C-alpha cells in the first residue's frame, strides 16, 4: 500500500472517530421500550384512577391480588373496583377472561366464555392485531342467538402522558374498536389507552369517559 493511500485511510479512520465521538446523547429510548414491561401483573400492584364521566367523577382502584385458574388455565386475578378480572400474559399476548351471560325466564345462559385477546406483544408503533369470535347459541330450545365478538387494535403512537401521578414517557397509545353482537348484550366500543413502561395503563379515553392515573404502587 502506498504512502498516500495509507494516509487517506488513516485520515478516514480519524474522521470516523470524530463523527462517532459527536454522537453520544442522541438516543431514542428504543432499548428502554424494548425491555420494558407495559402490562405488569405483579401481585401487590395497585393503581388508583380518577374517572371523569358526564355529570361527575369518581375514584377507581385496580389491584393485582394473586394467581388463580379459570377455565382450566392459570391466570392472574385483578380486582377492578373490587370486581375480579382474570388475565393471562405470555411473551406474545395478553388475554382477559370474558364471560357474557344472558337471562331468559329464570335461567341464565352462557353466550361466551373464553380468554379474549387484548394486547399482542411486544408493542411496536404501527403494529395491529385483531380477533373475531363467532358462535350460535340456542336458548330455551327455540331462541337462537348469533354471537360475534370482534376486536381490532392498533399501536397508534408513542406519547408522553401527564397525570396527577407524574409524567410518563415512552407510552404506547393503543386504539381499539370492539364490536359485540349478542342479543340484548350487544355493544360497540371505541377507546384509546396509554400504556406506560413498568406501570401499565395510565390513561384511557372512550367517547364519554376518561380514566387517568392518580397513584401507582408497584408490587413485589
Amino acid at each position, binding site marked *: *500500500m502506498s*504512502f498516500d493511500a*495509507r*494516509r487517506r*485511510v*488513516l485520515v*478516514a*479512520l480519524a474522521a*470516523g*472517530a470524530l463523527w*462517532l*465521538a459527536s*454522537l*453520544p*446523547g*442522541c*438516543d*431514542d*429510548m*428504543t*432499548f*428502554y*421500550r*424494548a*425491555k*420494558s414491561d407495559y402490562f405488569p401483573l405483579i401481585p401487590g400492584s395497585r393503581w388508583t384512577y380518577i374517572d371523569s364521566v358526564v355529570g361527575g367523577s369518581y375514584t377507581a382502584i385496580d389491584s393485582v391480588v394473586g394467581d388463580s385458574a379459570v377455565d382450566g388455565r392459570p391466570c392472574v386475578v385483578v380486582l377492578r373496583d373490587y370486581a375480579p378480572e382474570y388475565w393471562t400474559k*405470555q*411473551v*406474545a399476548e395478553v388475554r382477559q377472561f370474558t364471560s357474557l351471560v344472558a337471562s331468559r325466564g329464570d335461567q341464565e345462559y352462557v353466550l361466551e366464555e373464553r380468554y379474549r385477546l387484548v394486547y399482542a*406483544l*411486544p408493542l*411496536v*408503533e*404501527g*403494529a*395491529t392485531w385483531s380477533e373475531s369470535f363467532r358462535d350460535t347459541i340456542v336458548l330455551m330450545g327455540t331462541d337462537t342467538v348469533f354471537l360475534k365478538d370482534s376486536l381490532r387494535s392498533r*399501536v397508534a403512537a*408513542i406519547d408522553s402522558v401527564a397525570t396527577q401521578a*407524574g*409524567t410518563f*414517557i*415512552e407510552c404506547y397509545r393503543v386504539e381499539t374498536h370492539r364490536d359485540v353482537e349478542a342479543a340484548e348484550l350487544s355493544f360497540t366500543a371505541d377507546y384509546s389507552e396509554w400504556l406506560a413502561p413498568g406501570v401499565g395503563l395510565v390513561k384511557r379515553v372512550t367517547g364519554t369517559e376518561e380514566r387517568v392515573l392518580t397513584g401507582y404502587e408497584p408490587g413485589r
Partner: protein
Amino acid sequence: MLSLLLASLLLTGGFEAGGRIGVVFPASGLESTHDAAALFGASLGYQVGPNRFTLDCGYTGLQAKQANPYRFDVYDLSVRYGREFVLGRAASGPTSNWGFEASAAAGVALLARTLVSARETGKAPSGILGVGFFQRQGHSRLSLGLDNIVFIESRPAGSARTVSPTYLIALKGGVTYVF
C-alpha cells in the same frame, strides 16, 4: 509536528481488514423477551506496535422468545482501541506470535424493532469493553474474544435525568488480513 507524527505512524504501522462472527446474548432485562442471536461484523484497522485502532461495524438481529415475527435489529458502528500483550512466539518465524488483547470502543448503534409491517427505528450511543485471544502468523490474524457492549440511554426522571444502560454480551471469533 502533526505531519511528522502522522508520517512516523504511517512508516511504523500497518493496515489490516477483517471480519468476525459470533453470538450475542441479551442481558439487563432484554433477556426476558429476546433470545440470543448471531453476530456478523467487519473491521478496518491500523496497528502501531502493540496498539491497534479499528473502525468496526456489526449487525445482530435479536428474535422474540416465542414464535413471533418480531425482530430487533442492532447495527453498531464503533471506533476501537486495543492493546496486544504478546505472550509467545511460534517457531515459524519472527512474524508469528500469540497473546491476549484488551480493548475499548465507543460508537453508535442504529436500531430497528420490526413486527410484521410495523417498524420503529432509533439510535443509541454504545461503549464496548473487550478481552480476547489472538494468534498472528504472516499476513493473518485470528482472534477469539468476549465483548461487553453497553448502550446508554438517558431519560427524564422527575426534574433530573437518569441513565438506562442495556448490555449485550458477545462471544466472537474473527479473522483479519494484515497488509
